[in-house]
C-alpha cells in the first residue's frame, strides 16, 4: 500500500474525530434545567439510563481506588496510551533500522567480495 493511501486513512481518522464538533449543536438552555454537558462519556450516559429504567437499583460495589481528580484520571489515561504507543514505536523503529542496515550491507561493494 502506498504512502499516500496511508496518509489518506490517517486524515480520515482525524476528520471523523473533528466532524462531531460542528455536527452536534448545543441545545438551548432551559431556565431552571441543569445545563446539558456535551461530549461526556457514553459509559456515564448508560449509567444514567440504568437510573431511568430501574430507579431503585443500587450499585452494590464501589471502586476500590478512584483517581483523586479529573486531572489524575487524564494523567493515567495518557500514561496508558504512552506505554502502548512507546512500545509500538520501538518495535516499528527496530524494523525500519533493520531494513536500512540490511540495504546498506547489500549496497556496499566491500561486502560483495
Amino acid at each position, binding site marked *: *500500500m502506498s504512502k499516500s493511501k*496511508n496518509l489518506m*486513512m*490517517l486524515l*480520515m*481518522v482525524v476528520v*471523523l*474525530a473533528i*466532524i*462531531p*464538533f460542528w*455536527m*452536534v449543536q448545543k441545545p438551548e438552555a432551559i431556565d431552571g434545567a441543569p445545563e446539558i454537558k*456535551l*461530549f*461526556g*462519556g*457514553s*459509559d456515564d*450516559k*448508560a*449509567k444514567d*439510563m*440504568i437510573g431511568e*429504567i*430501574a430507579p431503585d*437499583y443500587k*450499585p*452494590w*460495589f*464501589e*471502586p*476500590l*481506588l*478512584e*483517581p483523586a481528580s479529573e486531572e489524575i*484520571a487524564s494523567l*493515567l*489515561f*495518557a500514561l*496508558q*496510551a504512552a*506505554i*502502548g*504507543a*512507546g*512500545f*509500538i514505536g520501538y*518495535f*516499528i523503529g527496530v*524494523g*525500519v533500522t*533493520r*531494513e536500512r542496515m540490511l540495504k546498506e550491507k547489500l549496497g556496499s561493494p566491500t561486502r560483495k567480495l
Partner: protein
Amino acid sequence: MHIMEGFLPVEHAIGWSVASLPFVAWGISSIKKQIAHNPEQRMLLGVGTAFAFVLSALKLPSVTGSCSHPTGTGLGALLFGPAAMAPVGLVVLLFQALLLAHGGLTTLGANVFSMAIVGPFVAWGIYKIARMLGASLAVGVFFAACLGDLMTYVTTSVQLALAFPDPVGGFAASLAKFAGIFAITQIPLAISEGLLTVLIFNALARFNPKELREMGFARELEAQS
C-alpha cells in the same frame, strides 16, 4: 463499553465471569503454545497488547454528542487468533478497573466478554469471510477491526438490557435504549478503529514481513508485493 463497578446485579456479574473464564484459560494456553513454538513472536504479541492499550485509552467524540473509545483488539485477534485476546483484554480492563475506576471488578467478566471475547471473535470471523469472498488484505482487516469494535458495544448493550429490562417494553425496549447510547455513538469510532488497524498492519507488513509470514500471512504478503 465499560459497565461501571457495581452496576450489574450479582447474578449477572457472576454469570458473565463464569462465561468469560474458559475463554481466558483457552487464550492463555493458546498464547503459551504459540510462544513456545516461536519465541520471536513475543514482541509481536506485545504490539497487539500495546495497540489495545493505546486505542482503549483514546476517548473520541462522536456524532451523538458523547465520547467513547475504540477497543484495539482486532489487530491481536488477526495475528494470534481470537482466543489470545481474552487474557490480553483482561489485562487492559484490569488496569482500567483498578487504577482508573473505569469499569470494575464486579463487571470485569461482562466487560471481558464484550471487549476481549465477542470483539476479537467477530473480527477474526469477518476477516476469514472477507478473504474467502476475495477481499484484499486491507479490506479484510478494515471490516474485521471495524465490526469487531461495533459488536463489542452491541454486546454491552445486550448485557445491560438483560440486566435492566424496561418495565414496559421489556428486553427489546431496553436494548434499543442502550444501543442508542453505545452502538450509534460507536459507528464513526469503529470506522476509525478499522482505518487505524489497517495502518498498523501496513506498517508491520512493510517492516516486519518475516514475522507476519511466520504468523500465517505469507500468501497475503506475496499477493501485496
